[in-house]
């Protein structure tokens, strides 16, 4: 059995191996054979093996209360200490497996997808940096190191999104992602600092203890909770900071799969799951509403998008909203469960879309067509026959995300919906939350099947391009197959095989903890509510999923209902959705432009007034003074004293150089005689 | 060991410390010399036989009981020795006489001193040094001085070239040899040869004897590096460029004949014995029996030790008669670019191995 120390060692290795790969690749990558991709892949595979061994250890222990903490003092300033360390429990282990699995899949997938890229080695280096920082978030045992890695994740996401920075849109998307995240991070930092000033520690478990002792409470706790949640809003791209994620699709597709589907955006959810016990009821309510609204809202945008990756991006936002909703209603284990399952099938969907785009791209390249958008679904259709593996795996993932039984998504989504329904049953005034959830579920099923039908079914929209489409190579289909396999329910319900119940190792090993805020419902109460609403929720979710799928089937496969007609009927709504509710435009008009104007005014004061008169005035005075002292120095001092000494020295030197015979041993003899003389004087 | 024991024994007999010391040294030194002589004679005979067999010849058959063919020429080396001893002792006219005469003895002293620390059995060891492993390597370098002396004093370009080559080669190969012998030293945590052998008791994996060579993969590699370096240090083919007959006549030995040449030969074979002894003590369990626990005491120790040494010396001969001579650049390439890096990795690996499993 793996003991505590070895867990610490493993965690260290898991954390630092990707960093090593990053360091090697960033400095020597170009000079290594194969541009050093094997370094990164080797490191990430070792990480994966270590994570899997920890998972195995978890199964063999079967201890829901397993918790291991290792820490050391990083900064000791007397009364003020900063400790760094690991907090490993079952959630951490599962999350580590998710991160390393998706990350290694991305590494492997990128082998083919990024082949021939001009910054190939740098791409792999950044992947390593990202994995390092993501693992850091997962393993962190205190808020400050969490924050450090949080920012590192931001940096690496910036680097990866803007990987093709020759494209202005990619560079802009990177910047946007970075800056939008910054807004959330300010809230996050405020939250951390509020906690620290009240409790005096960054350590998460000590913070929990402090909250339960009532060191912080009331509106301050709510404020701190909302602040911490702000971080999650930024990173998990919740409303209103969701705007960066769709743009981030400018990055390479494997990156999207890794960061914008499975890991980085899940960091926000992971944060709320980790910190769940300290959210006050009001904060939780805010979380629930933000999450629920985001779920529905993003889903409604996804319906009308035509870019295959944009659809998936909005779908991700929506699913993250789900998770946040689940945290908000207290069913945070369901949120984490959905995080896990979502990571698998969403990564699979992204890889699938990557595979499709890759194929399109190659085909267009061969036709020498650089104008057609390879990501536009309107140019696809009928790929089923040409790309059977991609089609099959993507279909499985779509079934999973739509919440069809026998697939993982059903289990987790069901749990979330049951949670929200239970919450609404308990607090009827919040009936909107389940409505958000079920609405989003229906829409999700609809647009996901829309994607599948538009891409793989029907006849080819561009026959010329269609001719060149071919299945992707093995290294690209392997992650697809693996991840779609992992989207089947059985991996989450072992050792039980009931496809309709999420009862399994996950629910047995990862138990909800009680909230430490006095007055919050306990885990047991929440569980009761969920259990109560379970069957209703299941029935409802099956119904809405079927509804969505059926509608999509009629509209896009059978063409019984015309999409255009419906769009026209909806009119304003369609337009709003198609243009993403004009969010970017509104931000631009009401936030950026006024800010820019203000900045220009400030700049005018700084440059034209302050610099010109004050600073330059100083400069002139100084120049005049220097001239004066220069005259005194050169003409007075130098000629008489400095040069005088020089001349005297020269004269002496001429005398003394007679002694320099150039014979080493003469010098030695002189030295020896000197020593003897000193010794004699000393003795006397 | 023996010297100390003898001095103690003499102390019980009476108070004559100076005489006791001299007696003890002489008493333990004479057998050592006999071992050297015997070793050279047997080894020369075996070498001739092995080389002949490997070349599908029969080797010396004439000299021996009955003085006739079919008697395996057992007395061949005796005859050789007699021939060498009665030969004229020639000293070249233009040589540096003093150094020329002194050089063989310096080489001989190096070999003799090294032999003093070889643990022939639990008790049969002339001196049991605390730093035995290191000592043997150290006195090995005295021989180099003798070789350079011989080469220079002969005042002959072949001799000088041979000597310079030999010095460069021996000094270079001392490094991988030293680095590899550190592996058993690290495993056992001692430089004392007896303790090193005591460390190698018991079994590993239940079957194999717990010799350091079987202990872990790094020491397995280290043994081969050490052994090959040892071959190079004894200037034997395929590393015999210092005395390469076809280029340098006989290297630094060109001008020597008769008795002095015999001393060279004696030392050379003694050196083989010493390096094999070090390899046996360091890697192959010293005087321990190959079947753990069986025949592992008393005189069996001597038997096993000599048996292992004999097999190693046989392998040296086998190698000699199999491979052609290396070029100088190949020799240095092998030493500096292959053996030394691998030996360093070995040391690192053994350290980690000891941390994890030790």
């Amino acid at each position, binding site marked *: 059995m793996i003991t505590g120390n070895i867990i610490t060692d493993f965690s260290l290795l898991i954390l630092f191996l990707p960093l090593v790969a990053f360091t090697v690749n960033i400095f020597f990558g170009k000079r290594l054979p194969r541009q050093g991709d094997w370094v990164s892949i080797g490191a990430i595979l070792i990480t994966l093996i270590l994570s899997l061994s920890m998972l195995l250890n978890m199964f063999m222990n079967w201890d829901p209360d397993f918790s291991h903490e290792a820490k050391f003092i990083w900064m000791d300033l007397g009364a003020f200490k900063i400790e760094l360390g690991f907090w490993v429990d079952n959630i951490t282990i599962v999350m580590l497996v998710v991160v390393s699995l998706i990350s290694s899949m991305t590494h492997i997938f990128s082998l083919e997808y990024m082949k021939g890229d001009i910054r190939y080695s740098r791409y792999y280096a950044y992947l390593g940096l990202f994995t390092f920082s993501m693992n850091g978030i997962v393993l962190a045992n205190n808020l400050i190191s969490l924050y450090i890695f949080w920012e590192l994740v931001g940096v690496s996401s910036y680097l990866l999104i803007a990987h093709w920075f020759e494209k202005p849109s990619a560079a802009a998307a990177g910047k946007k992602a970075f800056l939008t995240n910054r807004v959330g991070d300010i809230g996050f930092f405020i939250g951390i600092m509020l906690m620290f000033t009240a409790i005096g520690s960054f350590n998460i478990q000590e913070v929990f203890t402090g909250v339960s002792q009532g060191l912080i409470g009331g509106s301050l706790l709510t404020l701190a909770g909302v602040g911490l949640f702000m971080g999650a809003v930024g990173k998990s791209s919740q409303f209103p900071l969701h705007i960066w994620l769709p743009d981030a699709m400018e990055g390479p597709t494997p990156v999207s799969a890794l960061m914008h589907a499975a890991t980085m955006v899940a960091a926000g959810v992971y944060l709320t799951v980790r910190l769940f016990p300290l959210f006050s009821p009001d904060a939780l309510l805010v979380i629930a509403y933000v999450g629920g609204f985001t779920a529905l809202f993003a889903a409604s945008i996804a319906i009308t998008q035509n870019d295959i990756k944009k659809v998936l991006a909005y779908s991700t936002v929506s699913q993250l909203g789900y998770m946040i909703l689940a945290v908000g209603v207290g069913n945070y284990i369901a949120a984490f469960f959905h995080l896990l399952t979502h990571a698998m099938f969403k990564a699979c969907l992204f890889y699938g879309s990557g595979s499709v785009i890759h194929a399109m791209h190659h085909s267009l390249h061969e036709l020498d067509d650089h104008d057609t958008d390879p990501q536009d679904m309107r140019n696809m259709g009928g790929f089923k026959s040409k790309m059977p593996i991609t089609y099959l795996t993507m279909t499985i993932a779509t079934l999973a995300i739509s919440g069809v039984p026998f697939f993982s998504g059903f289990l987790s989504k069901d749990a979330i919906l049951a949670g929200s329904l239970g919450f609404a049953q308990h607090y009827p005034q919040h009936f909107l939350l389940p409505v958000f959830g079920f609405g989003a579920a229906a829409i999700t099923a609809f647009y996901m099947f829309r994607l599948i039908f538009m891409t793989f079914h029907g006849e080819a929209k561009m026959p010329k391009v269609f001719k060149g489409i071919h299945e992707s190579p093995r290294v690209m289909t392997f992650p697809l197959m693996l991840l779609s396999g992992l989207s089947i329910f059985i991996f989450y319900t072992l050792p039980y095989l009931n496809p309709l119940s999420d009862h399994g190792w996950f629910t047995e090993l990862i138990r909800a903890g009680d909230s430490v805020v006095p007055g919050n419902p306990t885990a047991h109460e929440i569980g009761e509510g969920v259990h109560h609403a379970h069957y209703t929720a299941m029935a409802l979710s099956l119904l809405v999923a079927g509804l969505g799928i059926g509608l999509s089937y009629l509209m896009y496969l059978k063409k019984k209902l015309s999409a255009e007609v419906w769009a026209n009927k909806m009119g304003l709504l369609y337009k709003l959705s198609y243009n993403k509710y004009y969010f970017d435009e509104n931000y631009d008009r009401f936030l950026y432009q006024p800010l820019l104007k203000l900045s220009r005014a400030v700049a005018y004061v700084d440059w034209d007034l302050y610099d010109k008169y004050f600073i330059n005035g100083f400069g002139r005075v100084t120049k005049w003074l220097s001239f004066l002292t220069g005259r005194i120095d050169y003409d007075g001092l130098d000629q008489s004293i400095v040069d005088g000494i020089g001349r005297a020295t020269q004269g002496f030197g001429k005398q003394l150089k007679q002694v320099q015979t150039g014979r080493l041993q003469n010098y030695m003899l002189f030295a020896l005689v000197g020593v003897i003389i000193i010794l004699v004087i000393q003795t006397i | 060991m023996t010297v100390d024991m003898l001095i103690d024994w003499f102390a019980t007999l009476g108070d004559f410390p100076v005489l006791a010391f001299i007696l003890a040294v002489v008493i333990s030194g004479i057998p050592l010399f006999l071992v050297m002589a015997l070793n050279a004679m047997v080894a020369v005979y075996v070498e001739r036989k*092995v080389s*002949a*067999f*490997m*070349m*599908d*010849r*029969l080797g010396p*058959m004439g000299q021996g009981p009955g*003085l*006739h*063919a*079919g008697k395996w020429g057992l007395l061949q080396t005796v005859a050789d020795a007699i021939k060498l001893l009665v030969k004229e002792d020639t000293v070249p006219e233009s040589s540096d006489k003093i150094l020329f005469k002194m050089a063989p003895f310096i080489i001989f002293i190096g070999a003799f001193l090294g032999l003093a620390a070889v643990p022939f059995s639990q008790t049969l060891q002339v001196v049991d040094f605390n730093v035995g492993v290191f000592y043997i390597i150290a006195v090995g370098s005295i021989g180099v001085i003798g070789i350079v002396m011989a080469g220079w004093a002969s005042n002959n370009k072949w001799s000088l070239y041979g000597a310079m080559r030999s010095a460069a080669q021996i000094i270079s190969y001392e490094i991988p040899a030293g680095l590899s012998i550190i592996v058993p030293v690290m495993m056992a945590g001692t430089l004392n040869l007896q303790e090193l052998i005591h460390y190698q008791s018991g079994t590993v994996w239940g079957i194999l004897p717990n010799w350091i060579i079987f202990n872990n993969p790094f020491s397995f590699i280290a043994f081969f590096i050490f052994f090959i370096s040892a071959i190079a240090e004894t200037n034997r083919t395929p590393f015999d460029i210092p005395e390469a007959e076809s280029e340098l006549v006989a290297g630094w030995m060109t001008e020597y004949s008769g008795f002095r040449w015999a001393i060279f030969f004696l030392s050379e074979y003694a050196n083989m014995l010493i390096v094999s002894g070090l390899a046996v003590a360091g890697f192959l369990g010293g005087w321990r029996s190959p079947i753990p626990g069986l025949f592992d005491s008393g005189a069996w120790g001597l038997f096993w030790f000599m048996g292992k040494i004999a097999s190693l010396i046989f392998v040296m001969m*086998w*190698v000699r*008669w*199999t*491979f052609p001579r290396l070029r100088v650049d190949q020799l240095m390439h092998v030493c500096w670019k*292959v053996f030394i890096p691998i030996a360093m990795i070995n040391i690192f690996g053994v350290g980690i191995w000891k941390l994890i499993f030790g």
Partner: protein
Amino acid sequence: MAKYFANIYDTVNTLWKGMRITWRHMINIKRDNVTLQYPEERWPRPERNIGFEHADYNVIRSRLHVDIDDCIGCLKCERACPVDCIKIDTIKSPNRGEDIPEIKHTGTTSNDTRKALVVSRFTIDMSECCYCNLCAYPCPEECIFMVGGPNNAKHDIDYEFSEFNRNDLIYQFAKSITKEQKESLQPPKPKVEA
């Protein structure tokens, strides 16, 4: 780097191959041995000749042989020998042409020449012989000759006569005579009158 290790692997592999070959030869020495322990073992003489009859091959010079029964002790060969490898001692025969059975002396040669001398010593040092054949020509009885070739009828060819001792190369042809027998053959010394 990969090349470096491939190189090492190659080296080890080929070393092992080479050593296996020599090992096989060593343990199979009985089968593979090419050495002939010469004086004891010899190559068999080839059955067939080298293209013409031995009898015609008169240049052959392998070893001197003396048919001592025909020798009359004339010392012509001894004188002819340029390297003085032939040594002959003679004693006057008591009765010319008569056999002396106790020393196996025959009185007449095969040419019916009556011998006047008993050859008490006839040695040829083959280690000194230079195979010039000069001794064979003057011999009146044709009793000294090189074996083989045209003389094949008289004596088998013998070109291998290696010995462990150098003295063994001094071939004795005379019949052995003890000292007493020798003295008995000597004519009594004339008494010197005082």
